[in-house]
Structure formats: structure tokens, C-alpha cells
């Protein structure tokens, strides 16, 4: 028979017992639908998480903190205590509270990190700066978290850009502060000058002026405002009396740094006696539980598919039994054992194919209906992106996988059909 005849014969055969075929396919659909939904959900969640994370870290930045001297560590990489590397400074926070910080790094560390090949710049990370308030004009005073902005900051902003070197008083505000600073939209907020009050350790308040150069994207959780590095330094100097001591260093590589290069930079920094956290570590932190969850859900889908597989075997064994006489006739008329086997394999693969197609289409339909609702309710701030995403490759993979499972399930009945003796088969009632 011709290939096309095999395919059409298989479809005709499936239609001979419509209800049974429908039920067998339905069992399969449950598995493929679940699998497609799990894929859609975990893929969507992954990209959602990555979008959210992009507001926190940039791929070319490495966070450096103190490790063990001369690259020696205890079990599981725990750094040894190094005497004389700690100093404590207390700073006033908002509402007059005190913030105490331990500083472990200094200018000589900064110099060492800058010297690592592949690192193009390094900046102190003043994580402890606490401002009193931020205010626009006569509008109310608001609490705001701040952090330093470093060159090559790569977050896609809702409006504007990160402060350049010459914009030494620039600030990028969180999306949620637009109204607080009297603007109606992100772009309207640009160029406004806001007042930021900082209190020194001697309890003396001082007002700094910052010009809005950008607005952060509308992610679900908002990081603090990004201050131009220079502005940040002078505030820290005022608040703590020093800028020569800090807890972390932000080391910057080229913006087009690859994942492999990040890993080798991390190793190089660690070799100098520091701990290094790359963008990949942060992402992995979030993605790992995600992978565990999706693996678990995939397991459930696999169980559903397994049950469906037994359904296919059963359906085909019954079909072979019912059509024994027909198989005998086909053999008498000159169909080879292979040919008979192939008919049943194609039938089994077809069940898998239809089960896959229907499952994937149903899942896509669910996404089509649910995505706009999810975007409006739970997962706001991802713009036009969708929580449930259906990458074509994965969906095609599910369909092909379903066909392969069908084929495997069909092997036993198909071989049995091929082996039938024509005379006995013809005599079968």
C-alpha cells in the first residue's frame, strides 16, 4: 500500500468505532492538555519572573563581597573569619531611627576588583543609605528606598533613561511614585526636580536636589529609586562621614558578556578572596523552585498519559480481535505481515496525534480566554506579555511525543495483528 493509503485507511478504521475512538482519544487529551498547560504556565512564569528580576539586576553586574583570604574556604565554600576587616557605622534612618552597618570592604578591595581582567569598572555599593523623605514642590513628603545606579544599567525603562556621567544629580524613580511627584504619566515626570532629605550621624538634616531622568517599568514589585552614582556618594559621605568603606562592590563587565564569561569572571573574583554573585545566581535562585514545581506537574501529566497509553493498547487489541477476519482477507489478497503491522501502528500514532492536537488546541483556547483576565487581575504589570505562553516548538513537541507514545502503545497489538495466520484468521468468527 502507499503511505497515503495507510494513513487514510487508519483514519477510516478509527471512524468505524466512533465512540470507542472518541473515548480513547479523550483519555489522551487529558494527558496532553495537562502537559500543554504545565508547559504554558511554567514557560510564562519563567519569563514573567525574568522580567520582574530584570528590574533588580543587570546581566553584566557582579555583586562582590568579602570572602576568605587567598582563596581558602571551609567546608561547602564557607569563608573563614578575617580579623581587622570589620568596622561599624551607625546612620540615622527615616523617622530618626538608627541604622547600623558593618563594612568589610574598602578602596584597596575596589582597586583589586577593577584589576580583574574582563571587569571594566567597579563601584562601591552603599546598601545602607537611608533617606528621610522625597518631595516634589509642596506635595506631601514620601518615604523612598534608594540605591546607586551604575553605568551600563540595562533595565528597560517606562520612560527616560538612566543618568549619564554628566547628569550627576539624576534619579530614576519607581513607577509607583509618578503620582506622588505630581505627574500623570511616566514621561510627564521626566525633568522634574525633587528634594531628598538626608540626616547625618550628627543628626543634621540636609536637602539634596535630584532631577528625574527616568521612570522604572511597571513591574509587580518595585525596587527603590536609582540615584546617579555621584549623588549617591555625596549623600553617603554626608550620612556616614565616609565613602571609603562599604559592604559590597558592584563589578561591571561588558554589556554583551555571555553566561560562560560571567561564570569565569565569578571564578576569577573568588580566586582573589571574595564572594561573587552573578545575575545567573539570582535568576537560578528563582528558577530552581519553578523547575521543581513544573517537574512535579509534568509528572502528573505523565501519569495521565500512562493511563491513556493503556487505553490505546486496549482499544487496538479489541480492534485486532474484531477485525481478525479482515486481516486474514488482507493477507490472502497479498498484504505482507509488515503491511498489517503498519496499519495498526499508524492507527495507534493517529490516536496519539489527534489526542495531541486536541489537547494542545484546548490548552491554547484556555490561554486565549484566561490571559487577558490574568493580566487584568493577578499578574498586572507585565504589559502585553502573557502569563500562559505556548511556544510553538514545545507544543509541536507535545504532539510528536503523543504520537510516539501512541506508536509504542500500538506495538504489541500491531505485531500481534501482523502475525495472524491467514487461514485461521479467515475462519475466525
Amino acid at each position: 500500500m502507499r503511505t497515503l493509503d495507510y494513513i487514510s485507511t487508519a483514519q477510516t478504521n478509527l471512524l468505524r468505532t466512533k465512540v470507542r475512538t472518541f473515548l480513547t482519544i479523550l483519555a489522551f487529551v487529558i494527558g496532553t492538555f495537562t502537559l500543554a498547560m504545565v508547559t504554558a504556565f511554567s514557560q510564562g512564569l519563567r519569563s514573567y519572573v525574568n522580567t520582574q528580576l530584570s528590574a533588580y539586576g543587570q546581566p553584566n553586574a557582579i555583586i562582590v563581597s568579602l570572602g576568605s583570604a587567598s582563596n581558602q574556604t571551609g567546608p561547602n565554600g564557607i569563608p573563614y573569619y578575617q580579623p581587622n576587616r570589620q568596622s561599624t557605622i551607625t546612620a540615622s534612618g527615616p523617622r530618626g531611627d538608627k541604622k547600623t552597618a558593618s563594612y568589610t570592604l574598602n578602596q584597596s578591595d575596589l582597586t583589586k576588583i577593577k584589576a580583574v581582567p574582563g571587569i571594566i569598572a567597579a563601584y562601591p555599593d552603599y546598601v545602607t543609605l537611608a533617606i528621610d523623605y522625597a518631595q516634589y514642590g509642596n506635595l506631601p513628603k514620601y518615604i523612598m528606598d534608594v540605591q546607586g545606579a551604575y553605568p551600563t544599567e540595562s533595565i528597560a525603562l517606562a520612560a527616560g533613561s538612566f543618568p549619564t556621567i554628566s547628569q550627576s544629580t539624576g534619579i530614576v524613580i519607581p513607577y509607583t511614585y509618578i503620582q506622588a511627584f505630581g505627574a500623570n504619566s511616566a514621561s510627564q515626570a521626566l525633568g522634574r526636580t525633587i528634594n531628598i532629605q538626608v540626616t547625618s550621624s550628627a543628626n543634621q538634616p540636609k536637602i539634596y536636589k535630584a532631577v528625574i531622568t527616568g521612570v522604572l517599568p511597571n513591574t509587580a514589585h518595585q525596587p527603590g529609586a536609582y540615584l546617579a552614582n555621584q549623588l549617591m556618594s555625596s549623600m553617603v559621605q554626608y550620612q556616614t562621614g565616609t565613602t571609603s568603606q562599604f559592604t559590597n562592590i558592584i563589578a561591571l563587565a561588558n554589556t554583551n558578556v555571555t553566561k560562560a564569561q560571567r561564570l569565569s569572571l565569578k571564578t576569577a573574583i573568588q580566586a582573589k578572596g571574595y564572594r561573587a554573585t552573578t545575575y545567573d545566581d539570582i535568576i537560578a535562585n528563582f528558577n530552581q523552585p519553578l523547575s521543581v514545581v513544573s517537574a512535579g506537574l509534568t509528572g502528573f501529566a505523565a501519569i495521565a498519559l500512562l493511563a491513556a497509553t493503556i487505553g490505546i493498547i486496549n482499544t487496538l487489541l479489541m480492534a485486532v480481535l474484531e477485525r481478525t477476519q479482515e486481516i486474514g482477507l488482507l493477507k490472502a489478497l497479498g498484504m505482507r505481515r509488515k503491511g498489517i503491522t503498519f496499519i495498526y501502528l499508524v492507527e495507534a500514532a493517529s490516536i496519539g496525534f489527534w489526542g495531541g492536537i486536541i489537547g494542545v488546541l484546548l490548552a491554547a483556547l484556555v490561554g486565549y480566554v484566561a490571559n487577558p483576565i490574568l493580566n487584568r487581575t493577578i499578574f498586572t504589570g507585565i504589559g502585553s506579555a502573557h502569563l500562559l505562553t505556548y511556544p510553538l516548538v514545545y507544543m509541536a513537541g507535545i504532539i510528536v511525543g503523543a504520537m510516539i507514545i501512541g506508536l509504542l502503545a500500538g506495538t504489541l497489538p500491531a505485531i500481534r495483528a501482523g502475525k495472524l495466520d491467514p487461514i485461521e484468521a479467515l475462519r475466525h468468527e
Partner: protein
Amino acid sequence: MKNPDQPILKTAKLHKSYGKKTNRFEALKGIDLAISRGESIAIIGKSGSGKSTLMHLLAGLDKPTNGNVYWSDQSISRMNEKQITNLRNTKVGFIFQQFFLQPTLTVLENTYLPLKIAGISSHNRKKLAKEALKSVDLLDKSDNLANDLSGGQRQRVAIARALINNPEVIFADEPTGNLDSETGKQIIELLFSLQKKNNITLIIVTHDEDLAKKCDRIIKISDGKIIK
């Protein structure tokens, strides 16, 4: 060049046993037979004498326990599965007592089944099936389901199906067994006229004396042996 005098089918000391040891039963006990091209042969004998068994061996549907079947001097015991199925597909036509039409297929689809198996294109096999159906006067039923036909009509479709691959030999096992005598006669007339027209070798297994007498030769089997 094929020698016209050379038998198209020949058997030598053909034995067939079923079962093993104490259950062993010898259905055929040494059959020697030569059948010429274009000949019509009736195989008769009591029930259980071994007629169908002989036919199955001749058609390559089963293998002899001992001895050989030769198709134009080629031993089919030497052929592999592919060659034997190919032989049946291209050189043999079958007509069964129970017709064995596929009820869910149309008359046309049933008729071209051997050609579909052979891998003939849809267009060609439909054309040939229509010709075959015309020769059994059933062209107007082409698109009916096989299920909707009367017994006589079904056997005519079976004849069309047996003819469609232009076979050298047609095997008919009790072709009139399920038909009333009047319809049976018509089927026989049709079968013989088509056999003469296409110079086909016809081998009929039958109980029917009248049918047997119409054949060029009668072979009577008793207890696994030819007695006449």
C-alpha cells in the same frame, strides 16, 4: 518464453499434517497433481477429506509438511514471505463461500482492494475496478456499501475483486455454498464465461455435482488422497 504445455501448477508428494504427536492428523497423504494453464478443475470429496487444505497449499496460504508446490516450476517452499504474498497479490484470485467483503467499504473499494495492497494509484485502481464491476454487471452499485447487497451480488463483487489483478489462477472454495441454486447457477455461468474470456486457470472446491461436471477435469479426494 513460457511453454504452453508446462503445467502452471504442480505438486509432488504433497503431505500436510496438523497437530503434534498423539494429536497428529494427516490431512493430505501424498498428492501428485499437474494443472495446465487455462484449465478448469473441480476438487470434490466428502467433508473433511482435505479439499480446502489442498487449495490453501496450492495458493501458498499454508506450507506443506512434506513435498512441494510448484508455480511454473518454481517451488513455493523456497519463496520467502515477500515472494509468496507478492505471488498471491499478482497471480491469484480468491473467491470464498462467505464472500469476505468488507461491510463498511463500498462495492468499488472492495473491488480494488488487491490493487490498493499492490500500491496502485487511486486513479488507476478505480478505473480498473469499474471495468471489473462492469464485467460482472454491477457498475451501477459501485458506490453502495457491500452490506447493502444481496448474496448473489456480493459474490459477483467477490468475482470482480478476484479478477481485478488479472490473475493466472482463481481459487474458489465452495463459491455457491451460500447461494440458492438459481443464483448459484448464474454465478457459475459468469465465472466460466470470464474464465474462458481471460484464459484463467480455475480451481473450484465444491460439493455441487452439476458445477463439477462443467469443469474440464474432476479430482476426487478421499481421506487425503486423490482417488480419481
